[in-house]
């Protein structure tokens, strides 16, 4: 039983929960995996810091919360700083490089940064920042097949925004693949 624990953090309004939802949906509906999403509720999900947890596994997820996450998607520095110490040593951090500055990771950690907000703005709307992050995450981690993620994007975003969101996904994914080929890992 291999389970990957993922923590997603950001500000309210960045689409943190949707990002978690798409990862979970891609894994459990469009790929042959199990995925459980839980999220922080209450005032914090409607404004300031916001976080979601996704557990992706090859068998049924029994314990629904992260305990020692292997993976983090960070879109705010505060969220990153709050949760970084709960990560395992060999963790992977996928982060928005203009918003998050990773620090104090051991040699076994991998960190992948992307200027996702700038890419999203170039594509026409800052709102797709989370989907750029998703594509990037898909490429650098390889945890969930590309096609499953893409299908999950297509079926989860608001009607009429599919094209923009898929472009955002592709942009993030391409950037991730390039980064991986270059072997560029910033710490």
């Amino acid at each position, binding site marked *: 039983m291999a389970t990957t624990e993922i923590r997603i953090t950001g500000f309210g309004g960045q689409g943190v929960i949707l990002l978690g*939802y798409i990862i979970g949906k891609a894994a459990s509906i469009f790929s042959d995996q199990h995925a459980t*999403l839980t999220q922080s509720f209450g005032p914090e999900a409607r404004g300031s810091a916001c976080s979601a947890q996704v557990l992706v596994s090859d068998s049924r997820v029994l314990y629904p919360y992260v305990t020692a996450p292997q993976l983090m998607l960070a879109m705010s520095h505060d969220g990153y700083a709050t949760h970084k110490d709960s990560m395992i040593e060999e963790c992977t951090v996928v982060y928005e490089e203009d918003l998050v500055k990773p620090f104090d990771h051991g040699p076994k950690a991998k960190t992948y940064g992307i200027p996702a907000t700038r890419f999203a703005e170039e594509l026409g709307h800052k709102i797709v920042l989370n989907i750029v992050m998703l594509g990037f995450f898909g490429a650098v981690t390889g945890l969930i097949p590309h096609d499953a993620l893409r299908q999950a994007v297509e079926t989860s975003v608001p009607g009429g925004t599919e094209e923009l969101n898929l472009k955002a996904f592709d942009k993030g994914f391409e950037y991730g693949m390039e980064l991986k080929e270059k072997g560029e890992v910033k710490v």
Partner: protein
Amino acid sequence: MKADPNRVLTGSHYLDGNHACAEGAIAAGCTFFGGYPITPSTEIAERVSRRFPKVGGVFIQMEDELASMAAILGASSGGAKTMSCTSGPGFSLMMENFGLGIMLETPCVLVNVQRGGPSTGLPTLPGQADMMQARWGSHGDYEVIALAPDSPQESFELTIHAFNLSEKYRMPVLIMTDECVGHMTEKVVIPPADQIELVERKYTKKKPGEAWPYDPDDDGISPLLPVGKGYKFHITGLTHDERGYPVITAKAHEWNVKRLMDKVNDHVDDIIWLEEQDVDGAEVVVMAYGISSRVMQPAISRARKEGIKVGQIKMVTVWPFPEKRVRELAAKVKSLVMVEMNLGQVFLEMDRCAAGKCRTHLVGHFGGTVHKPDEIYDAIKEAVK
């Protein structure tokens, strides 16, 4: 009777427990929902309010939970399948008319997405501390049926089951879920409508003038009388006779209350639903319900790998309590363990039924989060000593 295909979202979905519960209600044929917003249950009401207009049904946001519960009884009396959802504080308010539903014998489903209490407590975090309130929350003697889902998939399935039980036994049925399951998103497979079996409401076969509202069939369940069909029947929350007329005597009260109790107690074999694993030959049996029955599993697997003979019982129904089964097991095992997100509620029933024949252990929790598997593992180690 099969579900209406227009009401069933057949397919695989990625849904949270609350949305899945709403889909279960719609698939079950619910056409009236009276509710009042309360965290962490509100998504059920929100989904129903979006979906009902397209499949047929009325969602009404009532002025409070007292009204919500009263309205679902009124609409059910009018022939609708009805539901409401709430959480702790609202559940307290609903207990008044939950009792009326028990007394009038009105089918309906009430969902409590449990959060931490007492009072306003922890609106956004889970608990299982309303279990005794579910059992005894309204005044007087009565039996209840309460189901506890452990996942969005079960939230869908058990909601349909709850409607079926409520129609079959002509009484309100409780779904005691919690914030963790309600807000947890997972794959939910909704089958085709023709694979969803629904229990039809049992109406009297007698003619107007010959039928009374509390005239039980051989199974102890009284067929309902339809409104607007000339039966001109009366029902009351007062102690009543078979005609539904108030009779304020000890004798009438015994007849009335005994029937309310018997219709559940005489059918416990049909109602009680336990999922047992490795119970035969076990030295320790761990019991739990809802989310706790799920988070206990890694601990049980670990203990079993270490050679401990540990079995498990997931209580899909919590009420009525599986009294007979616990008595049987108490005579065979070293220890019974109850895992629940409260400080000992259903545990007390288990302990009572064990009657000193085996040791009993509570793995309680204040709520706010689910148990850590280690806590459960440690309890198993202790229980097997």
